[in-house]
Each structure stands twice: as structure tokens, then as C-alpha cells.
């Protein structure tokens, strides 16, 4: 999972203690992933157990210990960085299930829900466009690219609601209980 590799990647730049890892990780992702400090420490401990990171010093308060990447850690990180992601597409949003069920239970009458959902996506596009512009203004072109990804996903969501609405309009019976 990517918190693990996120930590390895940050430690590849320089040794960091737990709290530094947290702030750098959140800043890397422009605040789109808030991670609690407990997760950081437990992940660091697992990484240490697996021999991928090591504390720079054995003494003192463990919370203030800087960790560095081991040679094994570096190899593991490099391997991960080269590997394309092959996970199945994840459509976790509840709206998919909601529309399917509403279609069955309301006898295909989901136009209202589709219209409301569409507005949510339009508003999201506006908010994301604002975030993308702010990222560029702050010199975070990498973050703007992340936001662009979210924009493209939202555009796809919008097209998908349109396709659903179009399907209903062309064949009113379909989408209901079959």
C-alpha cells in the first residue's frame, strides 16, 4: 500500500523522524491525504521490522528518532517505482449502487436523482478547477496534475450520468425491475 512506499520515498531523500514524515507526506500530496501520526509510527515500525528502514540512532525518544533507508529498502522502493499499477478499476462510489437499486425499487424513476447527482459533479468540477488554478499559482505543477486527474474522473462521472439519463429517455422501461 502506498503510505508504506510514500515513507520509503521520503526517506530516500534524507533521514526523517516520524513527525517530519507526516508533514512532508501531506505536503507532497497537497493536503489531499491526511494521515494520523499513529499510522506513521506503526508503519515505520513495520518497515523497521522488515529491514527496509533503520533508526539513525538507538538511543533517545523513539518519536524524535530520524529513520534512514536501508539498502534493502532502496531496492524495494526502486522495484515499486518501476512497476505499473495493475489493480482492477475501483468504482467505490455509493451512487452506482444507489442508482441500480433506485432503478429497481422506483421502477426506473431515477431522473431526479440523476439530475441532482449531475449538479454535484458540476459543482465539483468548479471546485477542482479552482484548486488546480491555486496549485499552479503556488508553483505546485505536480499537484495541479493530481487535481487534473480528479477533473478527468469527474468529467467521466458526468458523462456517465448523461449516458444513464439518455438510456432512460430512449427506452423508458429499461433500468427498472426486470
Amino acid at each position: 500500500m502506498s503510505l508504506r512506499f510514500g515513507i520509503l520515498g521520503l526517506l530516500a531523500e534524507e533521514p526523517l523522524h516520524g513527525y517530519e514524515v507526516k508533514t512532508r507526506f501531506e505536503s507532497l500530496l497537497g493536503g489531499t491525504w491526511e494521515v494520523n501520526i499513529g499510522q506513521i509510527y506503526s508503519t515505520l515500525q513495520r518497515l523497521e521490522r522488515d529491514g527496509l528502514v533503520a533508526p539513525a540512532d538507538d538511543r533517545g525518544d523513539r518519536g524524535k528518532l530520524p529513520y534512514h533507508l536501508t539498502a534493502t529498502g532502496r531496492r524495494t522502493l526502486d522495484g515499486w517505482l518501476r512497476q505499473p499499477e495493475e489493480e482492477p478499476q475501483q468504482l467505490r462510489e455509493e451512487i452506482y449502487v444507489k442508482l441500480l437499486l433506485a432503478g429497481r425499487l422506483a421502477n426506473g424513476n431515477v431522473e431526479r436523482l440523476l439530475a441532482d447527482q449531475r449538479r454535484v459533479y458540476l459543482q465539483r468540477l468548479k471546485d477542482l478547477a479552482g484548486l488546480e488554478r491555486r496549485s499552479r499559482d503556488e508553483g505546485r505543477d505536480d499537484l495541479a496534475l493530481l487535481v487534473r486527474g480528479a477533473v478527468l474522473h469527474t468529467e467521466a462521472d458526468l458523462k456517465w450520468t448523461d449516458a444513464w439519463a439518455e438510456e432512460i429517455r430512449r427506452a423508458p422501461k429499461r433500468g427498472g425491475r426486470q
Partner: protein
Amino acid sequence: MTVMVELTDVRKLYNGGSPQAAVDGVSLTMQQGEFIAVMGPSGSGKSTLLNLIAGLDRPSEGRVLVDAVDVGSLSETELARFRRARIGFIFQFFNLLNNLTVLENILIPAQLAAVSPTVALDRATALMNGLGLAEKQRLLPGRLSGGERQRVAIARALINQPLLLLADEPTGALDSHAGEQVMERLTELNRRGQTILLVTHDAKLAAACAGRVITLSDGRVADDSRLKASPEVAPSDILRLRPGEAAP
């Protein structure tokens, strides 16, 4: 608030064998200072709607009021005068005259409307400065990038200080960077009070610029959404990389 555009039960039929409605019973009101985007698939009636508001086309039924003028009742001469004085136009393919310089292109509508040359030149200079075109004013359009050409077209559309700016797919022929610059110019114009009606199939463009998005489907208004200005909130309120792991 002042009503800028008012459509009442507007239909536009085209005769091709059997009459077909390109716009089929549209009623809507647009206030002064609004920025409306009209979306919809090809053939949904977007361009016809724009042409009706611009006075380029007359409604078959219903009434189109722009700045309280019943557009459908005007003669051809009156319509031409109405368009020159009240409407600014931006097109997808810029429609610049290639044998005239940037400045000359911008001045055309002012000359047609018999604006005094001094006033017209002052306005053109201010527009070119605002749109980053001052250095380019003596060039022919052929020497400009697509984004620059569209900015020339924006200056030309604004030279007569129109009440209403109509934009038909203004970023459709531009790469995404130039498109975004044009988009920002339009947003800025609206912030300073320009009423704008934008026709586009680009959802991001529509949502980013406009405060209201109207979606057409088969010549009818399928949706009319008002969007809130984007607040300066934490990124995680807009986008979460891992929703399950964000703050509770």
C-alpha cells in the same frame, strides 16, 4: 437586478421534409452580470439558441427579448444595428480577417458602428493592453498562435462595449493551455461586470467559468444549475486521495 435576456416559450423549426424543432419550448431569464454556460450534445439546440439571442435567427414561435428589445420584431437593418451595438461575438475559429493587422481587426466593429476613431483607438489600446496583445498590434493574424488569435477576437467582440458577450465554443480550436488562458480572460471580464453567454460541450470550461450551467437536450432545457463560487477551503474538502483514511 436588470433582466438582460428573456426567452418565453421559444421554438425554432427547421423544414427538412418534416418540420423539426431545433429549439423546442425554451423559457429562460438571464440577469445582467450573469455568466451562463449552455451545454448539451451536438444537435441539442445550443447554437440555435445562441443565434436566436444574437438576432442571427428569428424564433418560429415565442419571444426573444434582449435588453428589452423584441429581437424577432426587428427588420434586417434594425437587427444589424442591434447586433453591432449590443452584442459581442466570439467564435470557435476566431473569424479574423487575415489581410488586416491585429489592431485593424479589432477596430472593424467600431468603424461599422461609426464610433469616433479617437474613441475607438483608445478602447482598442486599453483592450490590447488588458489582453496582452500590445506588442502584437501591427502583426497579421497568420503570425499569431491560436490563443493569441482568440484574444484578438475577444478584443474585437468588446470594442463596442456590448451589453452581452456571446461565445460559441471559444476554446474548441485551442490546446488546453491556450484554452485555459481564454477561460481566465472570460472569467475576469465577468468579474468586472460583463454579461456572458457561453456555449460549450466542455464541462470543465462551463463549470469553471460560469455561475450557472444550462443543459439542453433535444431542444429543451434538461437542467438549469446554479453553482457556488469555489471557496478557498482546504484541498481535502474538495479532493481526497484516500477518502477512507482522511480525517473522520
